[in-house]
């Protein structure tokens, strides 16, 4: 089953379900499960953006055959100032599909909202992939989206450590941070340098640095997504560092046995 069409026409959203098997109509159980999940998203987003569940949703059209349901967001004059729930739903889908691993979610997207979106991304009992089409883009509601949501939902693990990379894109306004581009892991790591002086950080722009501080990573991810810098060192350029070749032949070992036996003994003892 696929959710093939959704259009935000002023205050209406249209959901069309298509069976994965074109020769069979949409299963009633799939429709009911899906409507329950969408209802969960709408209620949760309403609470998140408006502070409480205050929006009324009506069924404005219902077609059999291709299983089209049109839901209307009822906006009364006294609610004019509040935030549009449908627009927020679409915005959230957009952001969830483009958010970088480790980046913060939009401020209003609570854990409850995320869980409801995760529910929608779950396969339907008899269905396959779900696709949501907005006027702006197509959103594949699939494993990738589920994984992104799970990443946002998983708790952070914090540890003291070191990370190296090239420092770039310093933001001196508001929350003072820069981006660190490491050799492995996330493409960029958010580096909070509130406890360091501006001059120190500015002088290391575009240079390779070793940052010591509190590393934050998702509990299932070996790579940190952000670091709260406590100290950092600008690393010398490669031209000033030893090469492997320069170390060749430099070691006189103190053990008699072969290297293989030496390592084996060390690891057996450990």
């Amino acid at each position, binding site marked *: 089953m696929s959710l093939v069409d959704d259009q935000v026409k002023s205050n209406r959203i249209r959901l069309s379900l298509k069976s994965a098997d074109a020769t069979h109509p949409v299963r009633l159980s799939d429709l009911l499960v899906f409507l329950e999940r969408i209802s969960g998203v709408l209620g949760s987003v309403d609470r998140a953006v408006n502070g409480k569940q205050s929006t009324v949703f009506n069924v404005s059209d219902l077609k059999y055959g291709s299983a089209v349901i049109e839901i209307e967001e009822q906006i009364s004059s006294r609610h004019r100032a509040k935030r549009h729930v449908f627009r927020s739903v679409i915005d959230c889908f957009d952001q969830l599909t483009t958010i970088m691993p480790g980046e913060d979610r939009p401020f209003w997207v609570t854990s409850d909202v995320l869980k409801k979106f995760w529910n929608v991304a779950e396969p339907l009992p008899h269905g396959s992939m779900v696709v949501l089409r907005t006027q702006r883009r197509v959103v594949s509601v699939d494993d990738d989206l589920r994984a992104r949501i799970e990443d946002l939902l998983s708790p952070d693990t914090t540890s003291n450590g070191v990370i190296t990379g090239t420092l770039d894109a310093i933001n001196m306004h508001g929350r003072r941070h820069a981006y660190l581009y490491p050799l492995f892991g996330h493409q960029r790591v958010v580096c909070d340098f509130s406890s360091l002086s501006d001059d120190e950080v500015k002088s290391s722009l575009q240079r390779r640095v070793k940052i010591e501080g509190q590393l934050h990573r998702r509990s299932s991810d070996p790579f940190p997504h952000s670091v709260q810098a406590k100290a950092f060192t600008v690393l010398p350029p490669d031209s000033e560092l030893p090469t492997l070749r320069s170390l060749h032949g430099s070691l006189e*070992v103190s053990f008699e046995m072969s290297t293989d036996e030496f390592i084996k003994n060390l690891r057996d003892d450990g």
Partner: protein
Amino acid sequence: MTANPRSVVWDTSCFIDYFNANKKGQRTDEEMGGLESVANSIDRGETNLVIPQAVFFEYLETGAPESQFTRFERFAQRSNVQVVDINSVISLAAREVRIQTAEFGFKIRGVDAVFVATAVLYSVHQLHTFDRDMLRLNERFTVKGQNRRLTICKPGLSSDDPLRLPGLFS
């Protein structure tokens, strides 16, 4: 995640034998040639090197003088070298490596498993080692985020491996 085009993990024995220049004569010319070709590729910045922190602990046990150790540490600051601390994710992955290795009917030591787990999680192309137990795990584990198995082999850049560099042997 960034996937590096060429990357290797070196087991501790690779560093010891390369830095010691095979003074004990335990490696064949071919094995030393393999080490040299990879080392040259790393020095040219064409291959990224991942060093699990355990390498430094084990290297200290060789009796290397302080000055030599410091030079090794400074080498590890190069832009295409990454030193990896053990964190909880790597520990768990190492545990999984040990469990799966037992299912294959082999045994692997804890530190060996950390090297394999690091190579898997960092999605490197090859783990270089001379250890027979680790070599038996060649192409047994799928690297993270990629549809390929981890190559565990003796160091070298052969004609059919993904690390081969154009014109390297010409």
